[in-house]
């Protein structure tokens, strides 16, 4: 089953084929519902990349997905499967909101970084607990992070509805943050001010660069990859795996907290119920498509951002196709690129070896 593939095929060709399989199957389903798949795909492409406004939205969604994709990818490098990015991003929202609501007297240059740090800290804390539980108590990180998603949801519903809600408000959300906490939009880069893309995009790019440096250019990153490849070798080399597990989970949770920064400081300017909108789960698809590499994660985040924005537009243009079809595409990508990843490998390998190099 471990048929060797050339590097370019493993990194580019195979993910592309898997993506095409997912899109092809989606087209078949669209056809089965009686709509025109070509019209749907056209609406999707125009809706996501057809105007500066559309690109602004695409990049805004892509920012969320880059953060959660990086979160999942970093944990994967250490052999850990973090399904909890959703809950970690949710908790990070609490940190962001607490800072933005309580430190209003600070100037923007202090308030924004503090709010970002608070978000990252809360996200890191919520992820470090499952990490610690796996390292010290042996509970499976997948199950614990699933449970922590639900715990985060219950906790946040309670806090937003009963404690943080704006006085006199009927809708479950806090009052608007002070404008000093607003992340500036990217109007100076030519995006219309209506598009919600903001400085968090730059943060996501920096985070991707930082993750690359950390994982491929530091001893700590090397130790992490050794642990991911072979826990036995890591133990033999004297790597403290318990400590690594807690640290890499904290890093993963802090990265997931970027969603709260982009959503709350960049676009919504208040804490509201369910602002994480499933980006934590999309992050799994993004990381798998991007081969758990920061560069790949950025590219696939862009792809999924375009799909999300295009899907919303498509739902307007093609009546019988809902925007949820994007969720279907995401699921199929996880299925083909992740679970069924070994399906095409032997065939492709045989095909490539027959050709003279």
């Amino acid at each position, binding site marked *: 089953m471990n048929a060797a593939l050339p590097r370019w095929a493993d990194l580019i060709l195979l993910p592309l084929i898997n993506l095409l399989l997912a899109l092809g199957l989606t087209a078949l*389903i669209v056809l089965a519902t009686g709509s025109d798949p070509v019209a749907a795909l056209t609406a999707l492409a125009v809706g996501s990349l057809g105007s500066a406004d559309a690109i602004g939205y695409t990049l805004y969604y892509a920012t969320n997905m880059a953060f959660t994709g990086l979160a999942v990818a970093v944990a994967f490098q250490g052999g850990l499967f973090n399904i909890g990015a959703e809950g970690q991003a949710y908790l990070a929202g609490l940190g962001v909101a607490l800072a933005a609501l309580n430190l209003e007297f600070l100037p923007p240059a202090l308030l924004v970084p503090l709010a970002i740090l608070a978000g990252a800290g809360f996200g890191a804390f919520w992820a470090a607990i499952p990490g610690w539980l796996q390292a010290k108590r042996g509970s499976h990180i997948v*199950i*614990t992070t699933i449970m922590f998603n639900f715990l985060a949801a219950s*906790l946040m519903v309670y806090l937003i509805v009963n404690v943080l809600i704006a006085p006199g408000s009927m809708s479950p959300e806090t009052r608007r943050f002070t404008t000093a906490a607003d992340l500036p939009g990217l109007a100076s880069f030519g995006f219309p001010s209506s598009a919600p893309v903001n400085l968090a995009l730059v943060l996501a790019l920096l985070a991707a660069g930082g993750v690359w440096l950390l994982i491929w250019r530091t001893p700590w990153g090397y130790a992490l990859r050794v642990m991911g490849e072979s826990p036995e070798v890591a133990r033999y080399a004297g790597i403290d795996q318990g400590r690594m597990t807690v640290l890499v989970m904290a890093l993963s949770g802090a990265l997931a907290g970027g969603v709260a920064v982009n959503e709350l400081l960049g676009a919504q300017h208040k804490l509201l119920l369910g602002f994480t909108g499933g980006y934590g*789960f999309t992050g*799994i698809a993004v990381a798998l498509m991007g081969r758990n590499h920061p560069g790949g994660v950025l590219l696939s985040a862009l792809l999924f951002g375009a799909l999300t924005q295009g899907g919303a537009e498509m739902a307007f243009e093609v009546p019988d196709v*809902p925007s949820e079809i994007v969720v279907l595409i995401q699921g199929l990508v996880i299925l083909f690129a*992740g679970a069924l990843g070994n399906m095409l490998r032997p065939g492709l390998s045989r095909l490539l070896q027959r050709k003279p190099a």
Partner: protein
Amino acid sequence: MEGFDLIPILAATLRVATPLLLAALAGLFSERSGIIDVGLEGKMLVAAFAAAAAASVSGNVFLGLLAGIGASCLLGLVHAYACVTLRGSQVVSGMAINIVASGLTATLALAWFSMGGQTPPLPASARFLPITLPGSEALAGVPVLGRVYAALIGGQTALVYLALLLVPLSAWVLYRSRFGLRLRACGEHPAAIDTAGISVARLRYAGVLIASVLCGVAGAYIATAQGAGFQRDMIAGRGYIALAAMILGGWRPWPILLACLAFGLLDAVAIRLQGVVLPGIGAFPVQAIQALPYLLTVVLLAGFVGRAIPPKASGTPYVKER
């Protein structure tokens, strides 16, 4: 606290616990064979949609049930193919199934029924209805017993009884039958099964398919017995609570029943406590009760209270020795 009547609460407990029980037993068979199943939620969702759609079109609730089981089994086959044949990651496959199910059902529901992602509300004839046990009227005059017989023991849908019967049946299959012994061995030490000349792959496919059938029944129950039609993402995390119940039950049928009943009771009580004001605390934090199953699972898995030990080989693909 007037009107805090025990019998409706217990009856609600049974109704809420039934889909949890079915799904938790599903997880039990899958994990006992060595395949982790975080896709319970997705299989139930697809089954709920297929059952509601088929029952709505045909008007026959049993066709709905069959369609639900069929749809769930299709996803189960994908899961088994990915995990057993291709030896892919079982957790990734389960998550993929959950996300595919969410997107697929929403898409098909809108396209086929054009009702904003729902199926048309089912008439009583296309649903599982509460069964009135014979003699309910004769016993109606007896003080406590009459009501217990009519509203708790009776007055449930057929699938509730089916789920309860499946507990002793599962216990018998797992611990008293040859198939069960082999299935458990497959989840603990597949190499032994292989040495005995029995196919590990076939046993694991069987475990996943049994799980799919049970998830199908659970989904059909939610859409055509508890509810009256399909709504978007209507499983609402019950697949994960079932996973929690399976873990709390230590991968054994009878303790799983207890865990499901406890979760059902929590849910039934939480609904009645909504808006109740406690002296000194204020409005009762219903979220605390809703979070309890997840918290208990975390605590138990971490071994702070008792210890939850999963089947030893669950999660690891079996590679034949060469």
